[in-house]
């Protein structure tokens, strides 16, 4: 009797299974779409072409060009006091100041030496790690060593 009932309802069971699978697919598709829309709306995704800042790049190239002796002396001697005095205000000056209700820095620039440096040194004004906006890297040769100066901007609002 039980077997007969199940036999009679094979069609219904198949249809129900179709609906269960369809529901799961619908929920997955909706969740993914919702996630994409929410991320896009908050602007958390950074497009590759956004990783260029024409104005900052120009400033950094000019600034490094006229301060190349200071950079070299600081790295060789390991004394970064003059270097910090010069580069700290420069890095703050690179940031965009935007005002609506109040005026704030829109992100901050940082500097790091990479490669085999004589002495480790960073200037980190503000960094969130995974929300960096722009990069400006260039190689700086000192005494047969290739040192990379990495400038990068971290996103985030900072009060003046």
């Amino acid at each position, binding site marked *: 009797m039980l077997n007969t009932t199940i036999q*009679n309802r094979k069609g*219904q069971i198949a*249809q*129900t299974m179709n*609906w269960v699978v*369809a*529901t799961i697919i*619908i*929920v997955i598709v*909706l969740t993914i*779409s*919702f996630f994409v*829309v*929410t991320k*896009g*709306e908050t602007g958390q995704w950074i497009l590759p072409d956004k990783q260029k800042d*024409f*104005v900052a790049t*120009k*400033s*950094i*190239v*000019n*600034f490094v*060009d*006229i301060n190349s002796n200071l950079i070299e002396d600081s790295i060789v001697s390991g004394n970064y006091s003059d270097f910090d005095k010069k580069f700290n205000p*420069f890095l703050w*000056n*690179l940031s*965009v*100041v*935007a*005002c*609506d*209700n*109040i*005026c704030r820095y829109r992100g901050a620039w940082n500097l790091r030496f990479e490669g085999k440096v004589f002495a480790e040194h960073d200037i980190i004004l503000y960094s969130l790690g995974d929300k960096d906006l722009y990069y400006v890297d260039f190689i700086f040769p000192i005494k047969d060593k290739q040192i990379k100066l990495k400038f990068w901007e971290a996103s985030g609002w900072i009060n003046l």
Partner: protein
Amino acid sequence: MNNWNKRGEKYLSVYWFAILVIVAVGISAMVIIFYGKPYDVREIEAGILINKIVDCLSNADGTLNAEINNENFLNKCHLVLGDEYYLEIDPFGIKQGNFNLKDYCGKGESVVCVKRNVYLLDEENREVIIKILSVVGKDA
């Protein structure tokens, strides 16, 4: 037996409508989240203006184009400023556009002000810090 079959069909119809409602609500929510707020592109616009100005003030090698002053600025930089724009560039003393907009900087959302510094080199290879203020107001 037939009654049992019909009960199943009834539940399935309700389920079908429930799925329709879920999909409709989901799509509506996504559209509202994405398009619900008006786009405010004034900050981006102010940034683009600054990029154009820097491009105009500097030569290809990064040196300063000293020929530009308040009188020839708009012509040399190929800019036409409407009432909703204001530009100020130090140390050139360039002030162009609607002067009144500057007074509203930091006092509300009626204008968006963007300030940016640029380091350029003059003819004698000395650093020149150029301060640019770009203000964009609401289109009337």
